[in-house]
């Protein structure tokens, strides 16, 4: 019989204690694996979905909030930018593409974020060289909508499904009368796009309340461009001019939900952010610097705030969690030490018998170390499996809350280090009991006590 078989038999004899000590290792490893996988998925998702754009342009404020709201749709938008600002940016010779997005509303069903945008949104890869794929068509008509895979799965929407949106998110409770029609369903991307509903920006502005009243629009635009506010009479005159020019329009002339279209004056339109691709990377850097000097808006590289978030906050949390789970594993190791060491008192005779049968001291040492290794490694393997199962179990919840698609079978490179580390732990915690067993006196332990 090999040392392995003898060690296994010894563990089997103390099956409950062995199981419990192995389980404690497994639980520690399970938590560590879950932390590693979840962090890895979150990190790659955050970095991946930012890759498509060189800059995100939005109102002054926190760059992180701008990125979180405009790309990850997990944070409320900072403010809005005048549509004119978007048109001016589009004309910048350094800009390749500028995609405006309007955020703030959610679907009535499922509270998924609404993204008002232009059809070109889907022409930019959502991740490194990964193009959008759609079942149906992309946005064409004003009241067309394209929905993410998660939205389709959760709400059971298909091509032709119609929906309404809640103004300013679910908290306000105001449901717009206008209905959008699903014309396309995106293939899963593993990004926040999966839980987003994209509506044509033209249709978005048609919705009652989305086109600012002239007086408010004039005030906001002047404020944005740093112009002095108009006196009440001058403002009224400006409003009259605009009404005359555009003829005025009252949504209340339409039946609720009736689809209608009219051109909304530029001054009444606002965008939440502009996603920009530049012709050169240097241009992106230059533009970012220029925006920093100005007071109107900010431009940020979408990867930088996320990297900062990942390293400064999430990274530290990850390290903390890893240390905590590492400590759990070490405590489990101490449990193995206690279990083996206390069992030695009962096993002195067993050891003496083996020695009397010719087992060398080194063989006995090896048997005890093997027991410790088996507990650590089997616990570790079980923990690896349990960790992945835990992630698999948690994946639907995380996806539902964040839109991040999690693959429970995704293997993190650091997992390769776990088993060697556990083997070292096994040797360390098994060493003292093994030495104690090694020193067992044969003659005095041979007879039953």
């Amino acid at each position, binding site marked *: *019989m*090999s040392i392995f078989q*003898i060690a296994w*038999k*010894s563990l*089997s*004899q103390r099956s409950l204690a062995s199981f419990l000590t192995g389980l404690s290792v497994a639980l520690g490893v399970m938590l560590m694996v879950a932390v590693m996988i979840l962090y890895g998925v979150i990190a790659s998702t955050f970095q991946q979905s930012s890759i498509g754009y060189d800059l995100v342009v939005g109102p002054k404020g926190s760059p992180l909030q701008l990125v979180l709201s405009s790309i990850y749709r997990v944070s409320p938008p900072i403010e809005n930018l005048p549509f004119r600002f978007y048109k001016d940016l589009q004309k910048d010779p350094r800009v390749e593409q500028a995609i405006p997005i309007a955020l703030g509303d959610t679907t009535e069903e499922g509270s998924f974020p609404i993204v008002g945008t232009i059809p070109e949104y889907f022409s930019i890869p959502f991740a490194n060289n990964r193009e959008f794929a759609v079942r149906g068509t992309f946005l064409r008509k004003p009241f067309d909508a394209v929905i993410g895979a998660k939205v389709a799965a959760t709400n059971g929407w298909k091509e032709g499904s119609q929906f309404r949106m809640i103004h300013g998110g679910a908290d306000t409770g105001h449901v717009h009368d206008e209905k959008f029609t699903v014309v396309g369903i995106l293939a899963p991307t593993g990004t926040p796009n999966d839980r987003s509903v994209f509506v044509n920006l033209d249709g978005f502005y048609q919705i009652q309340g989305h086109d600012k009243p002239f007086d408010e629009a004039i005030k906001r635009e002047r404020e944005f461009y740093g112009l002095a506010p108009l006196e009440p009479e001058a403002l009224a005159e400006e409003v009259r001019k605009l009404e005359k020019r555009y003829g005025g329009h009252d949504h209340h002339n339409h039946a609720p939900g009736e689809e209608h279209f009219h051109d909304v004056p530029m001054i009444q339109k606002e965008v939440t952010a502009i996603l920009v691709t530049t012709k050169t990377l240097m241009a992106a850097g230059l533009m970012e610097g220029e925006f920093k000097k100005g007071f109107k808006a900010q431009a940020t590289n979408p990867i930088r705030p996320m990297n900062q978030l990942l390293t400064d906050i999430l990274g530290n949390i990850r390290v903390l969690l890893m240390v905590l789970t590492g400590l759990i594993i070490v405590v489990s190791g101490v449990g193995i030490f206690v279990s083996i060491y206390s069992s030695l008192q009962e096993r002195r*005779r*067993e050891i003496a*018998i*083996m*020695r*009397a*049968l*010719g*087992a*060398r*001291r*080194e*063989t006995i040492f090896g048997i005890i170390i093997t027991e410790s290794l088996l507990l650590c490694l089997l616990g570790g393997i079980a923990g690896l499996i349990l960790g992945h199962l835990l992630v698999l179990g948690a994946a639907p919840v995380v996806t539902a809350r964040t839109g991040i698609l999690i693959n429970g079978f995704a293997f993190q490179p650091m997992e390769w280090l776990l088993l060697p580390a556990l083997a070292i732990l096994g040797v360390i915690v098994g060493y003292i009991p093994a030495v104690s067993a090694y020193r067992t006196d*044969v*003659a*005095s*332990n*041979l*007879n*039953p*006590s």
Partner: protein
Amino acid sequence: MSLILNQIRKAYVTPTGAEQVILDIPAFSLDQGEQVALVGTSGSGKTTLLNVAAGITTPDSGTVTVGGVEITRMLEPVRDRFRSERIGYVFQTFNLLGAFTALENVLLGMSFSSQPANRHLAIELLGRVGLGDRLHYRPSQLSVGQQQRVSVARALAKTPRLLLADEPTANVDGPNQQAILELMQTTCRENNVTLLLVTHTSEVASQFSRVERLASFNQAATSTSTPYSMGVN
């Protein structure tokens, strides 16, 4: 393989701090292939003598020579290996491992030598001691007598050159007692194995051509008994 004990002295320190001499043997020997019954009262040092002969216990002084090799001069790992390959030992208390089946206990006895464990031989020996249908029983599932028979099979499975047996039939009933004795004696005779068997019954001793009384050559045999649990009776 011959066994020669020369000027062996072994003493223990009692809980009161006094030294108690267990063995004081000027000379004792067995020739190769000889079969000897050793008779002694309880606590007279029979088990200690077997332990010294097996190299399990180191004497305070004197030499033990097995097959012309002085094992008292060997380093411990070499002595362990020598014991595992040359010496079979049937313990009075069986000393089977509870986690292992009868077959595994026998295989375990073979595992510590340089030769690979012979499963076929282990099964055959268990059959010869009447346990062919109990191969996969654990010791707790066997009667006391059956456990002793497993212990005998384990000692013989190593194909030893010297077989030491400590009361091997003490817990076995009449017919099985005879069968075990015959198995040991026959196996030793056929393989020219030296047999030293400790017994306290004249019935067993009478089946040996040479019977030695420990008291007749152990000058310390008249001393008081030591506790059984110390393993020095």
